[in-house]
């Protein structure tokens, strides 16, 4: 056991007992759910500041209970279903969205070394898979099925338009997003997220410096992936009422909201893992282990702040602009980035 605790950083452990895995899964869901109101409040407060107003401040101290009030209100509302809606799909779609958003949370590593929890070494991640990156892509792709099915099952014109936009946006951005990460994967030589972070620690250089183009493309594509402004075309309040969630209300609407905010946090955590060195602290190699998750969370908050800042600034793109930006600019740029990285890697090794 002590041997495990002193093992070099980056070693993958499967030595956790089964009960630890189950407790970890529950904790991840718990953290995922409790991060939603926090993010909601943080975004609303910040958005208020960007617009020269204080944001919610009536419920609780500094509005701290505002998300609770919102969620409580939503949960007590009637579960309305339009006549013509496809029943079981209509119910399943928000569930798919929420569950897969939360599942994405499992692959994010919060610490490189196992922490000593009551004498048992436990890694601070849900799954430290060899193919963590692929799992992330898979989960987020399945998560968008929730949006597609929700829009389709509502049998409403606005919902359907929103769902169609979601489908088109998905294929425009998934490709560029994946290709943008090829540079990172090639440099590390692994798809495991904790190895990617360790590589950045070993290099003493975060991937945002050598992979600045990849980081930029990944960031923009992630904005499109999690449906944030300026790519929130599938919600598009001003043109599509509410897009795919026009017909949803009450608890099901809340589920879509949970999915949206979990996506926001996951996007921030993913970006900080891949490009901002995860739990690495610059110029401090021997940082104590308990700081690791705090550092990851701080970097996540920075990225979330930037995303909210962009939301406060940029207007929504037109639909054809979004498509042409994805296919004509991001995809060639990502390909070029991967190509140049490959050439550089071969030339200097």
């Amino acid at each position, binding site marked *: 056991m002590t041997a495990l605790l002193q093992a070099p950083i980056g070693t993958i452990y499967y030595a956790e007992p089964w009960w630890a895995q189950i407790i970890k899964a529950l904790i991840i869901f718990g953290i995922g759910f409790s991060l939603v109101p926090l993010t909601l409040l943080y975004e609303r407060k910040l958005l208020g*500041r960007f617009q*020269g107003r204080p944001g919610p401040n009536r419920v609780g101290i500094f509005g701290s209970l505002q998300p609770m009030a919102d969620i409580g209100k939503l949960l007590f509302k009637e579960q309305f279903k339009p006549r013509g809606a496809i029943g079981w799909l209509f119910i399943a779609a928000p569930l798919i969205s929420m569950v897969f958003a939360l599942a994405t949370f499992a692959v994010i590593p919060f610490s490189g070394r196992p922490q000593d929890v009551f004498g048992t070494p436990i890694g601070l991640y849900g799954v430290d898979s060899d193919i963590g990156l692929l799992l992330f892509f898979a989960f987020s792709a399945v998560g968008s099925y929730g949006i597609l099915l929700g829009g389709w099952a509502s049998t409403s014109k606005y919902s359907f338009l929103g769902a169609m936009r979601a489908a088109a946006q998905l294929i425009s951005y998934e490709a560029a997003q994946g290709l943008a990460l090829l540079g990172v994967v090639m440099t590390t030589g692994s798809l495991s997220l904790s190895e990617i972070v360790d590589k950045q620690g070993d290099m003493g250089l975060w991937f945002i410096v050598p992979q600045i183009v990849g980081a930029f493309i990944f960031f923009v594509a992630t904005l499109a992936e999690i449906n944030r402004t300026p790519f929130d075309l599938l919600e598009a309040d001003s043109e599509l009422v509410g897009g795919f969630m026009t017909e949803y209300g009450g608890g099901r609407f809340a589920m879509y909201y949970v999915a949206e905010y979990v996506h926001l946090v996951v996007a921030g955590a993913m970006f900080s893992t891949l490009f901002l060195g995860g739990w690495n602290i610059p110029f401090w190699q021997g940082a104590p282990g308990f700081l690791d998750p705090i550092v990851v969370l701080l970097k996540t908050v920075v990225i979330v702040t930037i995303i909210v800042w962009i939301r406060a600034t*940029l207007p929504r793109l037109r639909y054809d602009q979004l498509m042409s930006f994805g296919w004509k600019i991001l995809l060639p740029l990502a390909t070029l980035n991967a190509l140049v990285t490959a050439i550089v890697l071969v030339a200097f090794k």
Partner: protein
Amino acid sequence: MTWNPDSDVVEVARGPEPGGLGGAYRVFGETLRGLKTSFMRVVEGTHTVEYPEEKIPVYPRWRGRHKLHKFEDTGLEKCVGCSLCAAACPADCIRVVAAENTPENRVSGGERYAAVYEINMSRCIFCGYCEIACPFDAITMGSDFELADYNRSDLIFTKEMLLAEPMVRTPLRAEGE
């Protein structure tokens, strides 16, 4: 003589052609400029007046809730029950019933006084015509504007309510402020 349009033709300055590398560069620059603009709003701070805690003082000419007045030296009411205010009221919300002053029961400075003086605030449009019509300055518009209530009947203000010194709920702007 024919009209020569040449002198009226004005060259309109056009922006650079969209697209291309220059276009991409400009778009990026404009995006950064927008981000800077919204960030400056954070630096600037909030402009919100948080209403129930914080109130903007009203101007002296503000037409708020009515007040009835008394003579300061004798304590007699200024209103003589002439009903001119009720006649001037476009919303017909003032009801005045006059009665004669007697030596034993002297209420107002004139021959008669208002036995009943009611203003229905749910009908009042706060035009201030009553104030203009009054020959004795007995009724004026005050500064209070927080008149909401749970009952319509509570919005009928009687003479006693209008005569009473109202709670100072609204700050009044000082001269020149």
